[in-house]
Structure formats: structure tokens, C-alpha cells
């Protein structure tokens, strides 16, 4: 054990002053912690106090306390896990929100209402398109019973028009939603580029600060950590910390796409900026490109909110049958195409009210342009309800047309499409809940290391305050001893 003998009063005074500095710095650090208790990304700081050891002619001397460092308390492992979790959370949150919006855009909702059923309340209306389909095929069935009734023919034409309008509108709404997602994706890439730039700038500042002071640049590192976590929510990234304290960032899906490399970003050096491109008629409508690598490939990036933008736009909403035939647009085109094809074939197989062979019932090629033939809307007698010529009382062909609703590729196909979308929305909501819980747990663990506790800070504040008071009293006593000595010399 080292001794503290042969310390002069001046040295003791200096030790007291040093102690005041140490306690004051600790109190300032506590103030900083309290001040930043709600600052995102902030990690509580701790003043590491050590014994101030000096070597004299008589060996090692303890000269009070000194500050070895002001440490920012972080767990690199938890920081990394939170960062990854935030990427997954960004994806799950956006996915849940977007798929729900897509479901709303499709507009298929159940609603209950009283009806004439003898024993129970009847649910009516299984969505705009499904209701319109049921109504249309029912009117064809009615026409089969009363083929000479001109009003029954007019109802078929009218219900057919309502059905095609419902399909056209839903298709248009889905494409509009896809366009809005593309706009959001573009804004996200802009935000990614801005964050990349900020992180590169912080890299530079951190390197300068650490080189100048030899100390860790805690506040700058906290700000950079917060930026990286925000970036993780937007796109799935991989980070690598360099020996000089700088962080390099690449896309997790493609390590050759560097967003931040040291002090470079947005195209400087080997880095790239991102951009989103939308083409409603392309097989893959929404793509993300790097400034030098070009299009990153289908489904890349796969994480963060940008990843879910791509997934919902390209896979959930998808592309028209003529382009890629995927997702809802492709499925709706498929149903509309079958409706057109099967109804037209059957109408052509029959005879209209004038005894003439039937023609086209629906025009168009898909959900965007399906419409009842203008000939039929202007003259419903052209609906080929009969199976034989000159048989105005024959409605058997209308009956066959009405039975097409049971064709697997029409009503059941549409119902399956809506059911699958519901499953997608439900799964996205479930994933969101799960990911929220995972992220919350990780953030709680991260906070257990880096978070500020007011009770803890207040307790420490009292400790350091008392130490400060004691140090001041120590100086007073030493000062008194000086006075005593001075009095001796004066008296002598």
C-alpha cells in the first residue's frame, strides 16, 4: 500500500482543488444525463474516477482523485441487435399499414342488414364487386325465367354495367395506391440519401474530435447511432466500424452497394445514392436503383420500410396481366378476362330476342377496360337468352350464362383473391405485433445499459454534492492550517 506521507500543505490544497474539479465534472455529467434523458439514441455517460497516483522520491504517492475518462455506456451487441430489429420493425409497420390500405382500396367489405329471411338477420353485401357479381348473375337467372320481359333484359344490361364499373373502379384505386406507394418510396430514398450524408459528416467530425482530444466523441457517436437506427428503419443495412471510429454502411442485400464509406456518401468515392423508379405497366412496377449499379434487382432492398414498399407495390398489388400478371392486378385481370371470354362465348352460342345469333356481351381485355358492349346497353334485346333461333320464350341460354358464376375462374377465383389478401393483411398485422414486442424487449435491454435513470442520477448527484462539500471543507481546513502556521511565524 502506498503511503501519503511527506505531502506538503500546498499539495494538499491542490488535492482539494483537484477533488472539487472531479466532483464538479461528475455533477456536470449527471446534469448532461438528466438533460438528455429523452434524447433518442443518447447513452448515459459515466465519469470514471481513479486515484491520482504520482511517483515521488519516496515512491508512489496517492494525490487524491482524477478523471480517467467520461465513458458513454453502450453494448455494441445490443446496439447491433436493436439496429437489426428496427429494420424488421420498419418493414413490419409499413407492411401492416400498406396492406391494410390496399384492402381498403379493393373495397370488399361485409355489412349486415335486416332482410326478409324468416328466421334470422341476413348479412348482405359481401363487397362491391362480389355483390355486383351476384346481382348480375341473378338478373341473368331472372331473364332465363322471363326472356320476353324487356325490363328483365334492361336489368341484365344495367347490372352488367354496374359490375364492370365496380371492377374498373377497384382496379383504378389499386393502381392509384400503387402510385402513392411509389411516391412514398421515392421520398424514402431521399431520406436514406440525406441520412447517409449526415452519417458520413458525423464520421468525419468523430474522427477529428477523437484525434484532437484523444477522448471518445460520445455525443457525436450518440447522434450517429440515432441516425443509423433511423436509417435501419428505412432500409436493411450492414454496418462495419473502422479502427478510426468511422462506420461504413452497405445494403444488407448487396454489400457492393455502399451508402457510407468513411466520410463519403451519395456517390462520392465508392458510395452510391438510391432512387426509386415507377412504371405502372412494367412487370416489376417499382424498382430501386443505385447511382452506379443501376436497378438493384427484384425485391432489393428486402427490409425496412423501403423493402415493404417494394413488396406491397410489386407483389401484393402486382402488375397487370399484360405485363407481369402478378398480385391483385394480375388476379383481377384474370377474373375480368374469364368473365369477358366465358360470357361472350355463351352469348354467341345463343340467339337474341330477334332470333339473331348473339354477339359480344362484354368488351375489353381485362379489369381496366371491361365494359358491357355498347350494342347491348343501347338495345338489351340483343342479349342472347335463347338457345334456338326464333324461340323468344326460350331462356335456356340465359340460364347457362347465369350458371357461369360457379365457374372456378370467375366468382370463386375472386373470392379466393380477396381471402388471400385478407390473409396477407392479417399476417402483416400479426408480424407487426410480434416485431413490436421483439423491438421493445431489445430496446428495454438496451436501455438497461444505456438508459438514464432519474433515481440513479439523483442519488449520484447527492453523493457528488456531498463529496464536493467535503472537499471544500477540506480546503478550508488546510487553509486554516496555513493560517495557524502563519500565526506561529508572526508570533515568533
Amino acid at each position, binding site marked *: 500500500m502506498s503511503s501519503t506521507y511527506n505531502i506538503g500543505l500546498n499539495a494538499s490544497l491542490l488535492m482539494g482543488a483537484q477533488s472539487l474539479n472531479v466532483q464538479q465534472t461528475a455533477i456536470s455529467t449527471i446534469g448532461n444525463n438528466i438533460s438528455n434523458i429523452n434524447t433518442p439514441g443518447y447513452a448515459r455517460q459515466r465519469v470514471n474516477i481513479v486515484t491520482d497516483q504520482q511517483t515521488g522520491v519516496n515512491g508512489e504517492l496517492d494525490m487524491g482523485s482524477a478523471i480517467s475518462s467520461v465513458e458513454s455506456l453502450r453494448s455494441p451487441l445490443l446496439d447491433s441487435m436493436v439496429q437489426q430489429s428496427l429494420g424488421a420493425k420498419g418493414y413490419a409497420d409499413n407492411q401492416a399499414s400498406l396492406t391494410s390500405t390496399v384492402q381498403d382500396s379493393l373495397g370488399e367489405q361485409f355489412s349486415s342488414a335486416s332482410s326478409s329471411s324468416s328466421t334470422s338477420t341476413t348479412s348482405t353485401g359481401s363487397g362491391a364487386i362480389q355483390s355486383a357479381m351476384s346481382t348480375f348473375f341473378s338478373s341473368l337467372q331472372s331473364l332465363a325465367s322471363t326472356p320476353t320481359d324487356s325490363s328483365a333484359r334492361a336489368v341484365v344490361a344495367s347490372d352488367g354495367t354496374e359490375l364492370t364499373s365496380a371492377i374498373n373502379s377497384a382496379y383504378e384505386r389499386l393502381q392509384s395506391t400503387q402510385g402513392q406507394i411509389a411516391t412514398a418510396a421515392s421520398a424514402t430514398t431521399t431520406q436514406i440519401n440525406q441520412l447517409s450524408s449526415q452519417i458520413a459528416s458525423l464520421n468525419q467530425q468523430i474522427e477529428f474530435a477523437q484525434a484532437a482530444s484523444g477522448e471518445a466523441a460520445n455525443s457525436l457517436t450518440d447522434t450517429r447511432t440515432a441516425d443509423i437506427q433511423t436509417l435501419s428503419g428505412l432500409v436493411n443495412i450492414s454496418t462495419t466500424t473502422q479502427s478510426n471510429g468511422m462506420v461504413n454502411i452497405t445494403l444488407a442485400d448487396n454489400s457492393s452497394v455502399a451508402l457510407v464509406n468513411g466520410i463519403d456518401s451519395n456517390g462520392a468515392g465508392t458510395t452510391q445514392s438510391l432512387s426509386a423508379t415507377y412504371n405502372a405497366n412494367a412487370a416489376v412496377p417499382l424498382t430501386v436503383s443505385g447511382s452506379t449499379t443501376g436497378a438493384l434487382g427484384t425485391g432489393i432492398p428486402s427490409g425496412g420500410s423501403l423493402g415493404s414498399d417494394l413488396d406491397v407495390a410489386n407483389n401484393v398489388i402486382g402488375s397487370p396481366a399484360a405485363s407481369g400478371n402478378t398480385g391483385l392486378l394480375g388476379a383481377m385481370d384474370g377474373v375480368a378476362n374469364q368473365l369477358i371470354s366465358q360470357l361472350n362465348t355463351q352469348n354467341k352460342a345463343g340467339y337474341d330476342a330477334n332470333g339473331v345469333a348473339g354477339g359480344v356481351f362484354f368488351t375489353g381485355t381485362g379489369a381496366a377496360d371491361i365494359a358491357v358492349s355498347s350494342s347491348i346497353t343501347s338495345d338489351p334485346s340483343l342479349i342472347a337468352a335463347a338457345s334456338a333461333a326464333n*324461340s323468344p320464350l326460350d331462356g335456356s341460354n340465359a340460364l347457362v350464362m347465369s350458371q357461369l358464376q360457379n365457374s372456378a375462374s370467375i366468382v370463386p377465383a375472386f373470392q379466393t383473391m380477396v381471402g388471400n389478401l385478407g390473409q396477407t393483411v392479417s399476417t402483416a398485422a400479426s408480424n407487426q405485433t410480434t416485431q413490436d414486442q421483439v423491438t421493445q424487449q431489445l430496446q428495454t435491454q438496451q436501455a*438497461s445499459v444505456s438508459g438514464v*435513470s*432519474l433515481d440513479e442520477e439523483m442519488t449520484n448527484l447527492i453523493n457528488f454534492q456531498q463529496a464536493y462539500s467535503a472537499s471544500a471543507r477540506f480546503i478550508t481546513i488546510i487553509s486554516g492550517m496555513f493560517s495557524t502556521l502563519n500565526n506561529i511565524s508572526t508570533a515568533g
Partner: protein
Amino acid sequence: MRVTSQTYSNLIISSSQSAQQQLAQLQQEISTGDSVQVASDNPLSYQLASQDQSMISQLNAYSSAASVATTATAQNNQAMTNIHQLLAQAGEYATTVSSDTSSTDMGTIATEMSDLLDQLTSVVNQKDSNGNYLFGGTANQPPLTSSGTYNSATNGATQTIEVQQGNAVQTGIVAGRSGSPPVDGFLYDSSTGVDVVGALNQTITDLKSGNATSVMNTDLPALNNALNLVSQYVGSTAASMSAVSAATTSLTQQLDSQNAQVNNLTQTNLPNITVQLQQIQNQYQASLEAGSRILSLSMLNYMGSVPTS
């Protein structure tokens, strides 16, 4: 694990948010009465309910068709009954010739038989509420001309109405006609040579000419054969009425069953939901209570007494 002040805030925010989301969902279910409104609420139930809904729509259409079929088969049966009565009457008139063979009386009977033929023409040429001829096949033509002879423009195609999936009821019956090609119906049967209109016309002719022998030996049997032919149609139309009635009853039962299924799949179970609402409300209240108590506690509340020197 070290717990910080922020941990409490995050927990309170998270638990209250979760409770509010559940309360909003339950409130919506109670206020609308629907537990499934969009597919994501319960994808499987939604899809099953959609299929049931399509079935209900089809069943409603079948019910409408059955209603039309009920009217048509009733009209058919009534017409056949009327014709049966007319022919029975004609047979009675013809039978009277055996006891009264004066030419004056036979002339009177011929006149009455002509009236019966007119009534027969009226019944056979009747139209439905849409103005369509009931018994001219699908050609929508009157089976008999105004002079009481067959109209060659008719055809033998019969109308059917599907009243259930795969259950088509014959709602159209044809009068039929002689000629080339002949059309079988309730007025003419090529296999037996029964010709109702021919028999009546021949009887009238023989009565007018005073040929009692032909009336008794040829015309009366022909009228009886005609009566038998129409009797078969009275029976078959009554059978059609029964078939439609049975189908209507079955449709009503199926509709009730399907509606009950849709209700089970999509409608709110109010007692359960109300209990759940109360549970979530209690949970929410407890969360807020605990949060407000914990948040108000801090070292700050006890620092006033700390000596400053």
C-alpha cells in the same frame, strides 16, 4: 436487469396503446354487430361467408324463378282442367245424340259444340302476364287460328325453369298440332293419332250433317280419347305444381340455413364481446393507475431535505 425511468414510460405507452387498439376493435364490433367486416378480420370466415353469400344470392334467384314457375304451372294446370271440362261437356253433348237424333236438335248441339270449340280456342290461345302465348311452344304464337284450326307457326319446344341447382321444372306445355311435321301436345298425339281439335271439328261437321251414326261410332270415341289425353296433362301439370312447391319449401329451408351460417361466421357474439370489453377496460384502467403511481415516484420528491453544506 437494470430498469430506467424510460422503461416505465415505454411500458405504459405500449400497454395503453395495445388496450386502446383492442377497445377500438371491440367497440366497432359492438356498434356494427359484425365481427368480420373485411377479409383481414378473419380470412377464413370471410371467405366462407363470401361463398355462403354467393349461394344465398343464387338461392334468392332460384326463389324468384320458383315464384314464376309456381304461377306458370298453376296457369297450366288451370288451363288443362278447363279443357278437360270442355271435352267432358263435348262428350256429354255427343252422347245425347243416341237418344235424340232429330236434325234440329243435332243442329242445336252442333252450335253448342262450336261454342265449346271457341272456348277451347280461347283457353289454348291464352297469354301470360307478359303477353306471351302459353301453349305455342317457344315460338310465342297462338296454337289455334281464329277459325279453330292449328297454327303451323307454333313449335314443340317446351320451356323449363330451373328452380334449384340441377332441378329444372317443365313450366311450358305445348298444344301440339297435326300437319307436317306434326307436333305432339295436349291437343294432338302422333303416336296414338288423338287429335282434340280434329275430333271436335269432325263432331260438329257430323252433327250439322245429321250423321248420328258417325257421331256415336266415330266421334264419341275420338272425344273420349281426347279427354284421356288431356287428363294425362291435368295430372302432369299437377305434378309440376307439386314439384315447384316442394322446391320452394326446400329453397326457404336452404336460405334460412345459409343465412344462419353467414351470421355465425360474421356476426358479433354480443355477450362474449361485452365481457371482453369489460376485461380490456379493467386492464386499461389498471395499466393507467399503475403507470400514474409509478411515474409520480422519484428521488426528486425526497430531495428537499438534503443538506447543502
